């Protein structure tokens, strides 16, 4: 199994290197296929290690180190990977969905003159993501963590002539850098106390630490998780990240990277269990995020941004789950979400690709008439997202709410938030659907729509969409609490659900009744407002609208609190300290000395008698002194 895992890790990197070395000599198509194959090879490796691990269920985590990556005195960090249910689970999702999306991008990126670079990046991303999930100790986890941030930066800014894209990329990277920093600080604490970053030892140490210390560690980790998963208050980068190519949004900012935060919490759950307060903070953040994102999504007019906000809110659900200790539920939702959110993005991508890269939903009206396949795929994805029974979202979202319900009073609050979120989900998702797909195509669409040889897109694009459609529809049936829970069982050795989060049948039942109803209610409202014949007008609440359009003024706040002051300080230091003080002090001293020199030279006035005078005077003084001190 280890071999499989290593294969899974190295294959994408090999792809990257190959493309880099090939450079411009390598034809674009070849580069594309190299990347795709490499990722599918990774998927094969993932499957291999999955089945191997499945075969011997006796002990569940296998570590394998190749060399000592970093060492200082007693503190050593091997370059090692871990193969256990959790990592294999993630490996499958990452490489599987990743493979599909890379395949999809072959068609999507076709014709872009920097195609090679794109595929190199994306293969590199898959490598980093796999390193993240396979990393056998905290530091390698952090390394993968940072590298996915890097590749996300690279891919967001892929169209580097667009200032907005570059800005978005920088924003994403810097926010994640902040996350990395807090993450690292958490690690420093662990090193200071255990001089090791092995998972086991770290967790063992954490349990012995003082409450405040372990809280600190957990907080650091949470900071990293929140930044990576775009949770409030570190979420503002995600919507902007939509500047990147759509497959990138699908892969990185929907399916895999952004969910890494959930993985991190799950992976380091012993620490969070030792720091219950912080765990609750995580859940709370999730709750706030899912509401906030849902509301903001309501007023977005960019098709991708709507989906991006929905991603935020879905990850909010996962955080809630992880926060209260229902880790496996969180992971399950992570999986289904990966399917249907990727699906949604790629469907949207089909539309965008077909309609001259237009993303404004108000222009895209009635595109469904021209793209039925896309329409249906999107519809199914939307249904799964909203959690219509029998669709995957239904099976994965409701248990999270149920798990909340059985917790203390705040559990009920979370539960309520989750339900409201479901309503919002229905509302914004189908607002999007009703605006874009049904009805007569708008003149803009008619004008700009161009089909790909009479099809809605090249087969490389359609096939992945099809596959994901199927998955989005049926993948949920894998696990149906409380009746059958293979995933929970599979993961339980690594991330056992906390007893507090064990949902009773009653919880499941009531949630499973209420949540779909609310979701459908949302859909209905959406239909009433945005449907073909609009029965309801959009409620006009000016302040609320402004609030939502400004996304609760987070960007403005950051600009005001961090960016502007930083720039101001830097400028101030430069203008008022560096240049006048540091850079000139030396030369000022020099000037002074030179003046002294001139004064000395004036003494040398060329008059012989002056010289003699100095000689005589010197002698006299010397004599006086001698006679005085003799």
């Amino acid at each position, binding site marked *: 199994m280890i071999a499989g895992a290593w294969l899974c890790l190295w294959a994408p990197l090999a792809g990257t290197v190959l493309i880099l070395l090939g450079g411009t000599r390598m034809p674009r198509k070849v580069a594309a296929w190299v990347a795709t194959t490499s990722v599918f090879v990774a998927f094969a490796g993932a499957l291999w290690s999955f089945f191997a691990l499945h075969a011997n269920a006796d002990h569940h985590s296998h570590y394998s180190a190749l060399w000592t990556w970093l060492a200082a005195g007693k503190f050593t960090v091997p370059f090692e990977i871990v193969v256990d249910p959790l990592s294999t689970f993630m490996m499958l999702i990452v490489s599987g969905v990743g493979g599909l999306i890379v395949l999809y991008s072959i068609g999507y990126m076709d014709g872009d003159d920097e195609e090679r670079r794109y595929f190199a990046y994306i293969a590199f991303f898959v490598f980093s993501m796999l390193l993240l999930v396979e990393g056998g100790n905290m530091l390698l986890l952090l390394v993968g963590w940072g590298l996915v941030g890097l590749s996300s930066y690279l891919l967001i800014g892929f169209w580097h002539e667009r200032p907005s894209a570059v800005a978005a990329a920088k924003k994403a990277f*810097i926010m994640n*850098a902040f996350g990395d*920093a807090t993450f690292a600080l958490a690690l420093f604490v662990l090193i200071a106390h255990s001089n090791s970053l092995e998972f086991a030892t770290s967790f063992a140490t954490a349990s012995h630490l003082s409450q405040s210390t372990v809280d600190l560690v957990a907080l650091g980790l949470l900071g990293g998780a929140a930044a990576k998963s775009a949770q409030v208050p570190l979420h503002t980068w995600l919507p902007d990240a939509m500047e990147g190519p759509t497959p990138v949004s699908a892969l990185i900012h929907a399916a895999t990277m952004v969910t890494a935060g959930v993985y991190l919490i799950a992976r380091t759950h012993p620490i969070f269990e030792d720091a219950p307060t912080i765990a609750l903070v995580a859940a709370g953040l999730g709750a706030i995020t899912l509401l906030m994102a849902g509301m903001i999504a309501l007023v977005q007019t960019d098709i991708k941004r709507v989906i991006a906000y929905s991603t935020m809110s879905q990850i909010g659900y996962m955080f809630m789950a992880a926060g209260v200790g229902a880790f496996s539920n969180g992971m399950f939702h992570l999986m289904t979400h990966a399917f249907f959110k990727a699906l949604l993005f790629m469907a949207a991508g089909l539309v965008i690709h077909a309609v001259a890269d237009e993303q404004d939903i108000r222009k895209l009206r009635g595109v469904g008439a021209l793209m039925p396949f896309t329409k249906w795929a999107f519809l199914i994805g939307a249904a799964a997202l909203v959690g219509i029974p029998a669709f995957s979202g239904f099976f994965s979202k409701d248990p999270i709410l149920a798990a909340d319900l059985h917790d203390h009073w705040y559990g009920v609050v979370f539960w309520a938030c989750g339900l409201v979120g479901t309503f919002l989900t229905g509302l914004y998702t189908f607002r999007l659907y009703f605006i874009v797909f049904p009805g007569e195509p708008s003149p803009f669409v008619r004008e700009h729509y161009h089909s790909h040889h009479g099809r809605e897109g090249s087969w490389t694009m359609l096939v992945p969409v099809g596959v994901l459609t199927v998955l989005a529809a049926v993948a949920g049936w894998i696990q149906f609490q409380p009746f059958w829970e293979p995933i929970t069982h599979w993961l339980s050795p690594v991330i056992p659900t906390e007893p507090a989060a064990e949902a009773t049948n009653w919880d499941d039942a009531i949630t499973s009744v209420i949540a779909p109803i609310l979701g459908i209610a949302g859909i209905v409202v959406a239909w009433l407002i945005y449907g073909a014949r609009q029965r309801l007008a959009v409620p006009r609440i000016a302040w609320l609208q402004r609030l939502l359009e400004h996304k609760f003024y987070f960007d403005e706040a950051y600009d005001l609190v961090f960016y502007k002051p930083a720039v101001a300080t830097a400028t101030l230091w430069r203008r008022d300290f560096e240049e006048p003080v*540091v850079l000139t002090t030396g030369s000022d001293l020099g000037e002074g000395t030179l003046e002294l020199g001139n004064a000395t030279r004036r003494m040398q006035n060329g008059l012989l008698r002056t010289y003699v005078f100095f000689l005589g005077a010197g002698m006299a003084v010397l004599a006086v002194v001698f006679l005085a001190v003799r």
Partner: protein
Amino acid sequence: MNASDLTTVLICLPLGAALLIWLLPLSRFATGSLAVLVSLVEVALWIEQAVRFDYGARGLQNAQQTAWIKDLHVSYHVGEYGFSLFLVGLTVVAMAAAVGYGFWVGRDRPRAYFGLMLFLTGATVGVFVAQDLLLFYAFFEAMLIPLYVLIGVWGGPGRIGATLKLLLYTMSGSLVMLAAIVVFGLKYGTFDLIASPTSPSRWLFLGFMLAFLIKAPLFPFHGWLPDSYREAPAEVTAVLSGVIAKAGTYGMLRIAITKFPEPTSFYRTAIMALGAASLVYGSMLAFRQPGFRGVVAYSSMAASGLIALGLFSGTNLGYDGAVLQMVAHGLVSAALFLLAGAVERRTTTGEFAYLGGMARGRPALATLLMVTGVIALAVPGSASFAGEFLILAGSYQRAWWWAVIGASGVVLAAMYMLRLISAVLHEARGSLVRDEAMDLRPGELSLIVPLVGVLLALSFWPAGISSHSFAGDNPTKAVREQFR
């Protein structure tokens, strides 16, 4: 020839070659290729040494000692420890790249130019292997002589002022050090770094530190830095920030900390504060610099601050991280300045206002600058990340706030480095970026790619340095034993 002779050869070969080049009336091409050859031989010799080196053993290796001034117990005493070996490696590699660059660019007055570059190589190697205070000082000063002329003759328009600043600043530090050396040597009856005992004198400690603080440089002793880095020819700046500046931090480790344990602990907080200040201040100013070189210049000041932070944290992690960071940052800034030179040659400017959009159609430049840049901002997984991580982990063990400040430095690094990258490569094409401005030529690639290659290799195996710098990888113990 045994490894001990190699140490001397590493010093004398370039000096001799310099003399030869000055004397022989060779053609431009012959001169250049001879210089390149010599610097490559240096690299080869170093590899030979690195292979033979016993990383587990305690004490000095490849040592040689001959009397120089008997009646004051001064001797020509050279030798290597793990960390000095790596710094020597850094020197020869970076110098080779720099010499190659000079050859590629075709500097005028080749004989003088290459002679001085080789002289600089020898002197710098000498600094890292000298085991006698006066010898150390001699090499420490000898580095300045070629630098002065290299910058003053082949530098930019403001070179005169820059060289003057450079010399007067650094000399004011090192002359104080000379006084300290005299006092130290006569007080303890020997100038030998191994034989001499530790000293409790705080004044002497400060005397030494001043020189190193200016050389590194640390805030607020960096007045010379911006001008010199801006005016010097690209490859000289590369060496200056990549290698020469490391002499300062090396001195802190080899002399200040080792020979003055009590003063070190007394002034620890103060100097760590300086380090932190340099880190934050340098990063902030780098963030507002209008040009390529300005950013890298202040960023290397920040790096020096970080290294000082690690060294004076006095922890295993700190020491190892500091050494690793010295090497990594040396290579990074060398590569970055060479790239800056490449950009300047194509656009006649380093000002961001006129740059931009160079990535389009220049894949090699884009890739190399991007890779170096992200390594420079210590993206996790890179060698410089490993160094920073160790340093901050070490300084956390001293007190948590050091680590916090350091971490903030990491974020700032991301800010200014990304600003640089996108200002040069991305967004709309700058007014001075012409279409015919070419991608990196093979000549330049053959210089920069090796540097980046070494960096990537280090990124895959930072332990190669961090765990081989000190005997038994126990820095604190080694320092306590004064590397005996």
